């Protein structure tokens, strides 16, 4: 529980810091999605049961919705679905070392952006959006993906250190608890 709370609080702070720094330093490039990195970390560290991880994914998605001014629920749903996919992948792929972390974060954010675009395109009419604008935004999202991949290793290390400091680090072994809660 403490681990989940730590994810939530620090994740929220990171979301706020990203926006704040961009505002102060007048950064006009696409900002990284720190919450997607956290989502990847939660999924691939495999130290949390699936419902808890999914609850965190929904929370991060909801917070991102509020911060980005997106229609509430879009990123929430995208994050939830992406987390399920990442958890499924985590059952089959082990992530270690910063190049793999970067790559995983990159594909995670690609997945989130694709899901977001898909939801927005599907709900374009009720939400009053133009579909053509979605495709342009989706192409621009490549910078978003690269930025997220670049910040993935430091954020990953930050959380490992943080959990080690708070003494809530759990051993990551192949025999650890399955995110889906299934028996092996």
């Amino acid at each position: 529980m403490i681990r989940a709370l730590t994810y939530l609080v620090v994740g929220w702070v990171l979301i706020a810091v990203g926006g704040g720094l961009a505002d102060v330093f007048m950064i006009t490039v696409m900002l990284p999605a720190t919450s997607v990195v956290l989502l990847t970390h939660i999924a691939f560290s495999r130290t949390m049961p699936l419902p808890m991880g999914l609850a965190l994914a929904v929370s991060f998605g909801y917070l991102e919705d509020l911060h980005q001014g997106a229609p509430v629920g879009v990123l929430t749903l995208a994050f939830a679905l992406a987390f399920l996919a990442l958890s499924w992948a985590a059952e089959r792929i082990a992530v270690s070392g910063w190049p793999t972390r970067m790559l995983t974060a990159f594909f995670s954010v690609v997945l989130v952006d694709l899901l977001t675009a898909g939801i927005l395109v599907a709900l374009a009419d009720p939400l009053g959006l133009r579909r053509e604008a979605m495709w342009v935004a989706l192409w621009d999202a490549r910078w978003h993906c690269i930025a997220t991949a670049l910040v993935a290793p430091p954020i990953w290390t930050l959380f490992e250190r943080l959990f080690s400091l708070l003494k809530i680090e759990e051993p990551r072994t192949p025999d650890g608890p399955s995110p889906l809660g299934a028996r092996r």
Partner: protein
Amino acid sequence: MAVSLRSIQNATIVVVLLAIPVVLLRNTAENPHELSAFDRSVRRIGAPLEAAVSYSTSTMGSFFERWLMQARLQDSNEQLASENRELAQRLRELAELAEENTQLRRALQMRDRTPADMIPAERVGVDQSPFFRVLNIRIDRGSRFAKPGMAVLSPDGVVGRVDKVFDDYSDVMLVTDARSKIAVEVARSRAQGILHGDSEYGCIVDVPKDYEVEPGELIQTSGVDELFPKGHPIGRVVDVEQLVGDQQRLHVKPEIRFDRVDVMWVVLAGAPRPDTAEPPVGPQAMGLQPVR
């Protein structure tokens, strides 16, 4: 296939959690421009956090901005100071060149005015008193050209006479030297006399009382001694002292500052033409006569 209770619980929770965004989306689709009470509550809770982060980052940003600006200013200041030093040095060099140019021009003009044969000489050393008054000047002309007693002139006035001659250089006895004697005249009245060195500050010359002399009058060479060309300025009368008898003593202050003389002319007048079959070399090729 056995399904555990825990798996059923987890699946239920997952379905409920997935239903939340669907419900949220449904509400948003119904009313896209309004936040729900829950949304507003979350924003209210997060507002202090965002404000704190924003304040911290802006404070940090302004600190780094100021620090960077100061570092840039310091770099710029050091660069400008360095440039300033270089420019000041160049300015000094240019001023020296301008002064040297002026002296050389005046020396050339004097050369054109003076009919005597002369050879240029450059100062290579000075003997000074403990109070930095010049007592003696050394020029870069040795025994090949100079001879003791030869006159040494500068564009501003008479410097003195060649005293000791060495292989590569010569010492010049200044007009202020007590041993110095030069035939002079008062420029206005032509009253003639012999100028003696008196002290480091000046000279004296005795002339008949028949001539009225006022302080400030110019004293120049008379040419009687056949060493100094006639009409070259020496100095100005600073005091007139009436002596017992029919003489009056004029105290003369030299026109030139001996510590600022760089280029001089050695007068070769009276030196015989060399009787040699060999073609002249060096200054002889320019029509100058070496002294024997």
